[in-house]
């Protein structure tokens, strides 16, 4: 499903070049549940942005479902993010002015689903994450765990094959964290490929595969027992 070969990413900060990723090669098959670990500044987030088509590599090739990403236009990348990839962020990133339902409907707006059909598609997703009685609440009226569940429902709006979660439990108490993790593993069992960036060894332990990054390189890539 995902083929990264010799991906290098260099940021220019003033006159200094900073190599964030160097020669990263990685392949992810459909249905995997992967934890990406590593200290701060090891390039985890950059790797996830790359895979999430939010960023382009300085060099190397990235194939997503057998299509070369680095030669795509901005609009094509936007369309892939919209339909093929769901994002879950550490800070939830819900739009504060919109209700939970409207937030979940947002990706549908950009995939051209007519307004009257959007709620019809968004409601089951909110039910699936256990928020059937919170659909019309604004994010500020929801707890952290609930907000993250809205974010997951939003990520699933277009039923993407790949879900990218950047420290999804980082801002949550342990009980909410476990709930979120349960939802994610449940989705994985339904066939969604999931990559989770985490510092938490307990989170990593529940994944099938763990990738360790350090200084922009993969130092360890193993299948969990």
């Amino acid at each position, binding site marked *: 499903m995902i083929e990264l070969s010799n991906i290098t990413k260099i940021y220019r900060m003033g006159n200094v070049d900073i190599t964030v990723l160097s020669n990263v090669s990685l392949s992810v098959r459909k249905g995997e549940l992967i934890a990406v670990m590593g200290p701060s500044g090891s390039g985890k987030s950059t790797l996830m942005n790359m895979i999430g088509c*939010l960023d382009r590599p300085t060099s190397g090739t990235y194939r997503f479902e057998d299509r070369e990403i680095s030669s795509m236009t*901005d609009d094509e990348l936007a*369309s892939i*993010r919209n*339909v093929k990839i769901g994002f879950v962020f550490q800070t939830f990133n819900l739009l504060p002015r919109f209700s939970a339902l409207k937030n979940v409907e*947002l*990706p549908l707006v*950009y995939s051209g689903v007519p307004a009257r059909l959007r709620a019809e598609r968004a409601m089951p997703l909110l039910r699936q994450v256990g928020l059937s009685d919170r659909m019309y609440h604004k994010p500020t009226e929801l707890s952290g765990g609930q907000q993250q569940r809205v974010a997951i429902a*939003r990520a699933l709006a277009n039923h993407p094959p790949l879900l990218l979660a950047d420290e999804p439990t980082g801002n949550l108490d342990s009980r909410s964290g476990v709930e979120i993790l349960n939802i994610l593993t449940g989705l994985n069992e339904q066939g969604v490929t999931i990559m989770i960036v985490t510092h938490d060894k307990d989170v990593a332990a529940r994944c099938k595969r763990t990738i360790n990054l350090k200084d922009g390189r993969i130092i360890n890539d193993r299948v969990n027992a």
Partner: protein
Amino acid sequence: MNLLETFRVAFEAIMSNKVRSGLTMLGVIIGVMAVILLVSIGEGAQVYITKELTGLGTNLLIITPGKTSTRGGFHPPSAGTARKLTYDDSLALRRRAWLLTDAVPLVFGTGKIKYQNMGRDMMIIGTTPEFQRVRNLFVGTGNYLSQGDVDSKSKVIVLGTKVKEELFGAENPLGKVVTLSDARYRVIGVMQKKGTSLGMDIDDIVYVPVTSGQELFDTDALFEIIASTPRSEDVDRAIAQIKDILIRRHAHKEDFTIQTQGAMLSTMNTILSVLTAVLGGIAGISLLVGGIGIMNIMLVSVRERTREIGIRKALGARNKDIMAQFMIEAITLSGAGGVIGILLGVGLALLIPLFVTVLPTSVSAWSIIMAFTFSAAVGVFFGVYPARKAALQDPIHALRYE
């Protein structure tokens, strides 16, 4: 993302910050209002002048001494000249120019008029009986000047209604004697009430025979001759006739100027059109300032919503979706401001004449259309830069933005 959806999002964004949106709109509102108001005042003046000039009587030809230009323009009544226009000139025109119905000699000036212990300075016109006909100003009570009065240089005077009110009050002025610059004049008539025309109070004038007027102002010249011809088709031929007669009398020199009413009208209209354009242009500047206000607030809005832009992009919004969102927001602000400005501008333009009678207004469709188009264009023009800035945000940086 369809257009309706984009409008809804823009509307929600505008409503989520009512005070700021309102103040931003105010700039456009004031600009559009000013454009409509000032243009309608300018156009009102034009309509008013046209009405007043055509109301003076039809097909008038004004002959003034001195050769200044061939057509149109305003000339001081007594420009330096070799030979003056005389009362005999007007008589000659009346006798020999058969295309003219009238050739009315005119002198005017100011003098002190006194009755008993009341007195003040006054506009005095010296003329002949036909003046009533060419200027559409008629005597109300008593008699107007007669040809006999003119021939015999009678010391008789006809008063405007305002003069009569001030000097005599309710008293009957007919037959009373007033003093006009140390000479005694007998009141023979009072004019009909007429009001103001072209900034001049018609009721605040007194009339004496032209011959007496010349004596009063110590001159043998006329300030102008008003001639009239019954049919507008004859104006050109009438001019030729006047020239023919006067040139022969003036030692074969064309030392006078003939202005037609049409030429005066078009001159006035040109001046007022320029004035209207200048007023509209000045008001347009305030609309421009309103536009800058929109750009300013849109830039703030883009910055504030950087994170929202990042989220929308991560969820699949294309650059043009973001661009459209902010453009429509700017256009909605300026468009709504434009509509409110039009309503206020038109409303004020219709109200002003009710309270300030000297300021006629005329609201024209084109000024409304122009103001609205201009305000929408302002939204587009000043919306593009912030919207582009929003659309080109790097999604990663936008997502991290605090």
